[in-house]
């Protein structure tokens, strides 16, 4: 989004300052609570959480079963839970099925496992096309899927948040759970790319 490379709109900056000041003066918000929340989502929550979930599922077949049967509870086993991820469903990519997550009506996204969404996920090009032309979207992300593979789009409407369990790449049998987690990208857990591995 080009908008993000411009200077901030001074009118917007002023509106935000006014709103925070009035709410604070009325005893309704504590600006320090905002600082705490910003720090939490900027530094403590992010796709590294989801990567741990995926790496565990790849490494532990029993965990994977629990994850696909009850995402919320299996994810909370690893300590991840909360706002905008209260009810989680995990969908598994296989050689036959590719899953893709979108929220056409707003920008629902599983915060506890992926952090806050990137701008493209929240923007009209992705939201408009992911349901009608998911293969076109995937192709722009570098993933050209054969016709035999079924593309399943999940239009997340807010109550339930979705995460993709990507396919484990070939040649990773010897990797530890921590090493696997390093391979796993945010975009692979939205379903717009695959996890890649090149032996070094």
């Amino acid at each position, binding site marked *: *989004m*080009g908008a993000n490379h411009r200077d*901030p709109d001074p009118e*917007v900056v*002023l*509106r935000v*300052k*006014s*709103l925070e*000041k*009035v709410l604070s*003066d*009325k*005893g*309704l*918000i*504590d600006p*320090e*609570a*905002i600082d705490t*929340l*910003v720090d939490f*989502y*900027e530094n403590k929550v*992010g796709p590294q959480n989801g990567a741990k979930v995926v790496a565990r599922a790849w490494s532990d077949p029993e965990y994977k079963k629990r994850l696909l049967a009850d995402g919320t509870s299996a994810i909370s086993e690893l300590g991840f*839970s*909360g*706002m905008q991820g*209260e*009810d989680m*469903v995990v969908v598994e990519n296989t050689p036959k099925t590719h899953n893709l997550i979108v929220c*056409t*009506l*707003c920008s629902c996204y599983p915060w*506890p496992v992926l952090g*806050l969404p*990137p*701008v*493209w996920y*929240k*923007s*009209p*090009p*992705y939201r*408009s*096309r992911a*349901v*009608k032309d*998911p293969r076109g*979207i995937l192709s*722009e*992300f570098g993933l050209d899927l054969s016709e035999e593979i*079924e*593309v*399943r789009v999940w*239009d997340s*409407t*807010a*109550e*339930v948040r979705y995460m993709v369990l990507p396919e484990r790449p070939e040649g990773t049998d010897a990797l530890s759970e921590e090493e696997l987690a390093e391979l796993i990208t945010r975009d692979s857990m939205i379903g717009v790319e695959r996890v890649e591995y090149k032996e070094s």
Partner: protein
Amino acid sequence: MNGPHDLGGLDGFGPVMKEANEPVFHYPWEKRVFGMFPALMALRFFNLDELRHGMERMSFASYLTSSYYEHWLHSFETLLVEKGVLTADELSSGKASSPQGPSDSMLTPENANGLARSGASTRIDLDVAASFKVGQSVLAKNIHPMGHTRLPRYARGKVGEVVEDHGVFVFADSHGQGTGASPQHLYGVKFLATELFGDDSPPNDSVTLDLWDDHLVAS
């Protein structure tokens, strides 16, 4: 409402623009708006569905030319004035007409991360009968409510299959109008791409959408 937010299936927005090494926030003001979200939720002046509907009521041009956190800002301002928490004068002056001490329900730095970690599910532990079963064929109603709805235009009048019963949840459509929780089952409904977007679509592709009892009829 058939507002600017209902983007599924539209053409003409161009390619997806990825940003390399995108930061969590682009501007300091975005952080303040983001942090106000849990703080305002804790105060319960409005619910999350009303907040969404506040964004949906933006003009098409504003919605499509402003960034995501501007949508939040617009909805905060709109709802706080509508609910009588603030006045437009206070917002434009940046001065509270009658300053007060901390409210009991104010989110504090001490309980902020607790709220983030627990969240607030709209799942309701109520024994409400399900109208539909997994495997059943259902028709998404052709409805055009003026308020908040989770049934997007592209799926209305289309036939799908119930693939999951998520349990009983607050009904977002009524909740977003402030007309009650109306708890009912929420289902994952799978629609074939050919049903949604015509015979030229790949025959095995599909979209699964979460819909409530009141959005569906047996087909």
